[in-house]
């Protein structure tokens, strides 16, 4: 039971980090109609910036700030240099150009840092574990990540729902010609949205990189999970991204814990472990297929 609650928290944590990734993807698609494969590269840029600055200054917090700044800056540069030319193109061109960006950014990072994984230290103030009500021992850093994820989610909802920029973003999703005609600088808005998504991805990269490791290619599995999230949630919907991310995070984590023991009930242990592990790795895709069968446009999708 204690293990189960711990795994629930882990699922929540990975779900919230996925949300940081998926929010940027879904915003960029919703507002600019762009499918961006290079979003995972921005996640990686954030992680490497954090590792680099933390190693140079000894401060995780400066590293975290640097990860957000570096990813946002990388996002803005990429948007102005490349992405801007892709808005009017079809999805195939967008896929290939951003695939090329992945090759460039990954290989460039490998050139600078080498292929060996880097490791980040949890800041001293957040190391160790806490005892939660009910006697569960849980990593303080992971708990902090959950807190940060929730805060960012609330902040993003307020930004999109209550501020002037949010109004422009939502108007941009609905009718971009119209808001351009009303005097909003659409080019600047696009760069801003892209940089915002990049900053969220970079922050997720730094936080997850601290738990796991920082290496080239770390963004790609997360990118594909984020795609699953926004397909489930409905492309363009922040609320869908949040619900989808939590569903995917929990399904993935709980599947890995529960499925082997479920199969253990009617199979021998070694077969049950491998069968459970194999099925658990497919669980989120099966979830996605089920959602698509019922709602082809995703749970909260406006457009199909």
């Amino acid at each position, binding site marked *: 039971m204690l293990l189960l609650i711990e795994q629930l928290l882990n699922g929540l944590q990975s779900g919230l980090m996925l949300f940081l990734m998926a929010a940027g993807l879904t915003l960029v698609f919703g507002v600019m109609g762009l499918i961006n494969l290079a979003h995972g590269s921005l996640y990686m840029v954030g992680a490497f910036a954090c590792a680099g600055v933390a190693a140079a200054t000894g401060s995780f917090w400066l590293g975290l700030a640097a990860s957000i700044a570096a990813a946002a800056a990388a996002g803005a540069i990429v948007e102005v240099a490349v992405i801007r030319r892709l808005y009017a193109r079809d999805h195939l061109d967008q896929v290939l150009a951003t695939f090329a960006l992945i090759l460039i950014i990954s290989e460039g990072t490998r050139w600078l840092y080498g292929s060996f994984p880097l490791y980040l230290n949890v800041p001293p103030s957040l190391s160790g574990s806490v005892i939660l009500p009910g006697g569960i021992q849980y990593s303080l850093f992971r708990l902090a990540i959950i807190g940060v994820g929730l805060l960012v989610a609330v902040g993003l909802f307020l930004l999109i729902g209550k501020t002037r920029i949010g109004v422009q973003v939502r108007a941009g999703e609905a009718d971009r010609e119209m808001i351009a005609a009303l005097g909003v600088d659409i080019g600047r808005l696009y760069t801003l949205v892209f940089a915002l998504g990049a900053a969220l991805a970079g922050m997720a990269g730094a936080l997850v990189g601290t738990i796991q490791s920082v290496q080239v290619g770390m963004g790609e599995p997360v990118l594909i999970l984020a795609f699953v999230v926004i397909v489930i949630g409905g*492309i363009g919907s922040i609320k869908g991204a949040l619900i989808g991310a939590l569903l995917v995070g929990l399904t993935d984590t709980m599947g890995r814990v529960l499925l082997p023991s479920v199969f253990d009930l009617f199979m021998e242990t070694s077969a049950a472990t*491998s069968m459970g592990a194999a099925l658990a790795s497919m669980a989120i895709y099966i979830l996605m297929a089920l959602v698509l069968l019922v709602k082809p446009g995703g749970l909260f999708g406006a457009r199909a």
Partner: protein
Amino acid sequence: MSAAEITAAPERQRGRMNRAQIVNAALALGLVGFGLGVWAMGEIFLVTLATKVAILAIAGAGLNLVLGFGGLVSFGHSAYFGLGGYTAGILAHHALNYTPMFEWPFLFEGTTSMPVIWITAMIVGALAAAMIGALSLRTAGVYFIMITLAFGQMIFYFAISWPAYGGEDGLPIYVRNGFPGLNTLDPIQFFGLVCAVLFAVLALIAILARSRFGLALQAARQNRQRLMAVGIRPGGVLLVAFVISGAITALAGALYADLNRFVSPSMLSWHLSGELLVFLILGGTGRLFAPLAGAGLYIALEHLLGGVSDHWQLFFGLLLLAVVLFARGGVIGFLAEGKRHG
């Protein structure tokens, strides 16, 4: 982006080759000539490289059917490629280790016969494509891209975490499977066999593209409403194309497994799906010989740039970016129609 030389049938009837056909013939002759030439010079490694180009071109041809003619951007074709590879690997694994694959309802010991493996691989690829296609085709546009990508990843992770056939480490094929009347271990004979398969596949696609089915498929890309107006459901046409495409790509995967005598989850990785798309873009989407031109260019660049720098992918990425942004129409488009922008 159109299927230019397929729809240029009237010119063909005048008995003279147009520029696209000349480029195609040059590509086919170039592949065979290169293979024979380097074989005569004793460069066995380059024969293997040419074989790799031909196999990847078959896989690309499968993708071209749905992407170039049907307009479906499938980002998960590595799934069929890898399933074909695993079909070859698993059948050979059982036959070579004398462990029967199943004993009920009849004893089946696996096989090392290429024709049997090819047919099985194509059936496996077609079945997987039918299931994935039926689900994915409920959606369109960017959803379709992400969903095909996600299903590809699903099979990738399954292969990694399923330990029976090597899991993450992959599965070796100790002796290349055999083809009646040929010594497949001889690189040039295997190269010839692969080329024959490639040209058979390209011929099949050319015939399909000009058939009633192919015209409906291209209409599904160009205008779904009009296709429905003449009484054809686009979904059915696209699904059939998707299934044929999966079977062709699985066939390529079986050949690729035999080329390397090794199958691993990397055949299922999404990078491979991306590379297949890259072949078509480099070659010129929708053109019959695009996969051959693209795969040839890609492997040549990998070989040449890889000799100059370990970080060749960086330069390749820059080149790909330039092609996508500034040189649409690919190599064949460039050669067949001169410079074209936009």
